[in-house]
């Protein structure tokens, strides 16, 4: 979902660059509360993993169109919303500055859509779903799938907003057409995003449940016993 140079005009790109910078600063300030000796390397791994999976464009049912993971939901589940947004932003910066993917001038727009909007939408849904659903592998999988799918659609509409503000082609008032096309395509891509996110998070939860931020931070209504009783009867 990387915007290429020339698609959005300069002033709007600059406004979103400032907006993204401010939001990322907030993410650093809030994320530091979560970042300890254990989460920091894990966050580095999450960024590296998202970079890898973003290379894997998968075909969607529509002929001639592909999609790839954005990673906002995955990052939010594994390292939390603040650090998660920073993970996706690091990936986008590396892609723009080293791999020529997504214009450097468009970086603020791309960070806004994929790192900020995608992760924020995902975490709101995660927080909601993990309180409603049971904490079984199935519950976690549904949480991951739904939050990932919808976060992709939200991110796609971020682009539609940006195009409305500074698109370089006059759509002749047919912004709704673009919004519909983007939403439809990204609903399909979101299925892939959901499957990848659910598979990854459930796998991590099976191996090391303590490394899944969402399971640590979002406690169920009844608190776990603070002190495990040796040889407890139950």
């Amino acid at each position, binding site marked *: *979902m990387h*915007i*290429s*140079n*020339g*698609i959005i005009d300069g002033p709007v790109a600059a406004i979103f660059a400032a907006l993204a910078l401010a939001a990322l600063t907030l993410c650093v300030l809030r994320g*530091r*509360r979560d*970042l*300890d*000796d254990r*989460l*920091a*390397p*894990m*966050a*580095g*791994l999450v*960024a*590296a*993993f*998202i*970079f*890898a*999976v973003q*290379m*894997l*464009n*998968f*075909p969607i049912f*529509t002929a*001639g*169109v*592909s999609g*790839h993971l954005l990673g906002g939901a995955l990052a939010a589940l594994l390292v939390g919303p603040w650090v998660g947004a*920073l*993970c996706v932003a*690091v990936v986008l910066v*590396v892609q*723009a500055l*080293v*791999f*020529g*993917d997504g214009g450097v*001038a468009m970086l603020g727009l791309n960070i806004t859509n994929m790192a900020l909007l995608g992760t924020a939408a995902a975490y709101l849904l995660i927080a909601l779903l993990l309180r409603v659903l049971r904490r079984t592998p199935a519950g976690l999988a549904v949480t991951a799938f739904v939050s990932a799918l919808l976060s992709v659609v939200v991110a*796609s509409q971020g682009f539609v907003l940006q195009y409305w503000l500074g698109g*370089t*082609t006059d*759509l002749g008032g047919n912004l709704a057409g*673009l919004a519909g*096309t983007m939403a439809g*395509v990204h609903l399909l*891509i979101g299925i892939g995003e959901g499957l990848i996110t659910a598979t990854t998070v459930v796998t991590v939860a099976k191996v*090391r449940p303590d*490394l899944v931020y969402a399971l*640590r931070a979002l*406690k169920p209504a009844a*608190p*776990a016993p*603070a002190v495990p009783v040796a040889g407890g009867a139950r």
Partner: protein
Amino acid sequence: MSKRSWPFLLGGLLVALLLAGVVSNYASAHPDGLDSSLLKGCTVNADDEITGGSCPAQQAKDHELADSPLADYGVRGVRNGFLSTGLSGVLGVLLTFALGGGLFWLARRRGPATAPAGADPTIAGPGDATAGVTTADPTATGPGEPPAGDETHAARATRAGTR
């Protein structure tokens, strides 16, 4: 809870390297959802190049760093396409891990202390009267012992849950 994380990190990194280094060669080359949406109104050939019509994608300009040695996920100078893509993926994973991991490591909270008095009172929630308990213990200020950190984590979470 005090299990070490490095085997997990190493395993995860290995998976990422395999995906970027090998599986990436089997990725779809078609335009993604956004690019294809911007092609609406144009006709394209088998290589997804615009052959006619009028669409937003025609406004696209070259990337500032199109001449970068790793541009478009290939290593300049490597003729073998499979190797070029795979190598660029491996380099990208390592670079992202080094940059991300390095920045997060520099930005992390130091030591197990959750709140050295006045540093960041909001960590344990504003007005949390019991927050002082964790800092009152002088042994908790030793250099990063994971068990101590985990205990305060759990204690804090439990308090938050019961409030």
